[in-house]
């Protein structure tokens, strides 16, 4: 436990306020916040003014008192020279609050011979440099040392608990509620509080009371943390010259994969989520997260790095300059022996692992964006209800399919959904185009539908199903109406065509084909 020397300037707010206001040191003064006295100097105290009094009452007791406003910034600013004066004698100064400064006692007490002489030197130094009055206390731990400073005491090492035991419980000034409660329970001193079992205090009054109990027992507020600092497991590579070709990327991917795997293996870890960062010479940053069911092997890592660079360097939004920095960060690691099982329903069975190997193989041929697995989402249109995720990425449905989606078409859904929308023309009996009104009704019953120059008669239809989505967003809103039409067969053996048409921006397109 650190032995601390605490220098305390009594009633610092009023001292600072007096300095700022240019008052003489013997003029009575108080600092007032919210109409209550927070700090009073010695002259004011002599007149019976105490912190906590109302302003008017203080003025009543001492008519020529100077009432000064509270300003923590001013207090802190004016305390700076005091901290600087202490720093001339001791290193490692820490300003605890305006008016309280703590330094490790070991240095100055060794240098000046004893803790007492160090305390004297510090008080003199502060008085000479700033003219401020101060007291010094030395004890184990900040709480005990501060209380010692209030009393101008040097508490011998290891006796903080004995020093604190007879003190009033109200010395725990930060926790008025707890103090009030403890006093009502009959606990008047820090020693009585410290005599309670720590576990009981924590379980009954909460973690914060537990910290207060540690203070009252003369310990540091928090138990020493035994956390091991996290090891930096990332692997960084700065290619020179910058990578702008895929074959160079593949070469580097191999090296990095081996490097990262060796590093992880040295720590007994394996990676299940890998972040690949790349920066280009023009300052573009590319980040991609890969999640894998099985811990990554060296070749798994290098494959992913290669696909990633491949995708970036060949893709439509390729960076404007070569890649100058490449970093692999294992975002999620498991113990080298632990295998994460049960990602798929029915367990990590043999069929799934065979399929997974085949998909990784195909990704090697086509890139990561070549193989998708679908997820069913909530939504209205047949397209909105499906999202495709590249294999290996995390699958998260963007919306819940079980929520009500008014305007969603009933099953069955169209079995073919053209990737490119095909324009269609819907004509009524008089040859005019059928439209949809603002209230989602058809302007006329459809009679004929022409798709790609092929006109067929409508024998049945239903709709429109309205989809007025995201109207509350500035530019995200879409208003669409969907229409099912059944087109007449051309011969006895021919199939009837059933289409799902959608009208958006005054145009009909084929959204789906029921085949």
């Amino acid at each position: 436990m650190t032995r601390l020397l605490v220098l305390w300037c009594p009633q610092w707010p009023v001292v600072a306020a007096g300095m700022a206001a240019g008052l003489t040191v013997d003029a009575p003064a108080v600092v007032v916040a919210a109409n209550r006295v927070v700090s009073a100097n010695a002259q004011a105290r002599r007149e019976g003014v105490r912190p906590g009094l109302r302003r008017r009452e203080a003025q009543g007791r001492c008519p020529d008192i100077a009432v000064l406003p509270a300003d923590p910034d001013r207090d802190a600013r004016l305390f700076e020279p005091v901290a600087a004066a202490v720093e001339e004698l001791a290193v490692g100064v820490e300003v605890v609050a305006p008016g309280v400064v703590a330094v490790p006692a070991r240095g100055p007490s060794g240098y000046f011979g004893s803790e007492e002489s160090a305390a004297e030197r510090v008080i003199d130094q502060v008085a000479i440099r700033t003219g401020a009055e101060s007291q010094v206390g030395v004890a184990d731990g900040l709480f005990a040392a501060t209380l010692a400073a209030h009393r101008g005491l040097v508490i011998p090492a290891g006796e903080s608990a004995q020093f604190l035991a007879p003190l009033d419980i109200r010395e725990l000034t930060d926790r008025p509620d707890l103090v009030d409660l403890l006093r009502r329970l009959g606990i008047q001193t820090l020693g009585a509080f410290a005599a309670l079992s720590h576990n009981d205090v924590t379980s009954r009054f909460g973690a914060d009371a537990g910290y207060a109990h540690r203070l009252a027992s003369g310990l540091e507020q928090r138990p020493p943390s035994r956390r091991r600092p996290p090891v930096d497991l990332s692997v960084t590579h700065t290619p020179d010259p910058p990578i702008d070709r895929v074959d160079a990327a593949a070469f580097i991917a191999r090296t990095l994969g081996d490097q990262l795997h060796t590093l992880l293996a040295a720590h007994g870890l394996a990676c299940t989520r890998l972040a690949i960062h790349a920066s280009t010479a023009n300052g573009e940053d590319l980040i991609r997260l890969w999640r894998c069911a099985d811990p990554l092997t060296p070749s798994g890592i290098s494959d992913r790095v290669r696909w990633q660079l491949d995708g970036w360097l060949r893709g439509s939004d390729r960076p404007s300059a070569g890649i100058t920095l490449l970093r692999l960060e294992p975002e999620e690691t498991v113990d080298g022996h632990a295998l994460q099982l049960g990602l798929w329903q029915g367990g990590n069975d043999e069929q799934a692992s065979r399929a997974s190997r085949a998909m990784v193989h195909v990704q090697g041929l086509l890139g990561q964006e070549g193989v998708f697995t679908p997820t069913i989402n909530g939504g209205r249109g047949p397209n909105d209800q499906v999202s495709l995720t590249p294999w290996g990425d995390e699958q998260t449905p963007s919306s819940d399919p079980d929520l009500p989606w008014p305007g969603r078409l009933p099953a069955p859904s169209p079995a073919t959904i053209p990737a490119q929308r095909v324009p269609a023309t819907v004509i009524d009996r008089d040859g005019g185009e059928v439209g949809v009104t603002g209230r989602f009704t058809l302007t006329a019953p459809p009679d004929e539908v022409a798709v790609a120059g092929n006109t067929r008669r409508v024998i049945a239809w239903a709709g429109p199903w309205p989809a007025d989505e995201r109207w509350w967003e500035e530019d995200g809103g879409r208003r669409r109406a969907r229409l099912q039409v059944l087109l007449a067969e051309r011969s006895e053996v021919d199939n009837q065509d059933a289409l799902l048409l959608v009208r958006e921006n005054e145009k009909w397109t084929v959204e789906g084909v029921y085949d």
Partner: protein
Amino acid sequence: MSAHSSPQPFRVEPGALAGPRVLPVHRDLSGLFPWGGLRRGGTISVQGSSGLLFALLSEASSQGSWTAVVGMPNLGVLAASEAGMAVQRVALIPQPGAEIAAVVAALLDGFDLVAVAANRIGEQLARKLSARARNRGAVLIAVGPWPGAELELTVARGRWSGLGTGHGHLTDHRVEVRARGRGAAARPRRAAFTLRGETPLTPPVFEHMFDTNTAATRRNP
């Protein structure tokens, strides 16, 4: 001794090869197949209906088989899910590009069912891929005409019901499926089915609810 025996006609009783050799199809569709289901290593061509493709795949898919669909960016995944396919065991390769042969070959190694858009594959390549499927024990389903397919399923007389003039919605899709093929499947068959969204096919017409004899015989052995 067997040199002079006349070649045995290739006859397999339905169900004789059931088990791992045949992947299940819906029992109403099983009559279309001489083997009672999708024979591993076989190539089947489906033409004219994506709904029929889903109906074929759904039973095996829901029982744990993995399915890959290559070169079909227009696939209605939601309809597939409604038809009973387990979409979490489906892999989509919508744009295989020039690597389509290598992609299909790789998928045949790992998947039970591989559906391929046939229009981009030449005859020679098609035969190679069929051979690969036979070798690996996967089922290759060509969507479109495929040279050397064991069984070709086409859809005709598709009729929809449920839709009125301004009311209702599409519910039932009645189709006539025509099957013709080679070998055991050489005899053309045709059958009418109702492909639907929620339950894939018509329930069988006959279903034995209980056997009148059992209760009595069990009580008095």
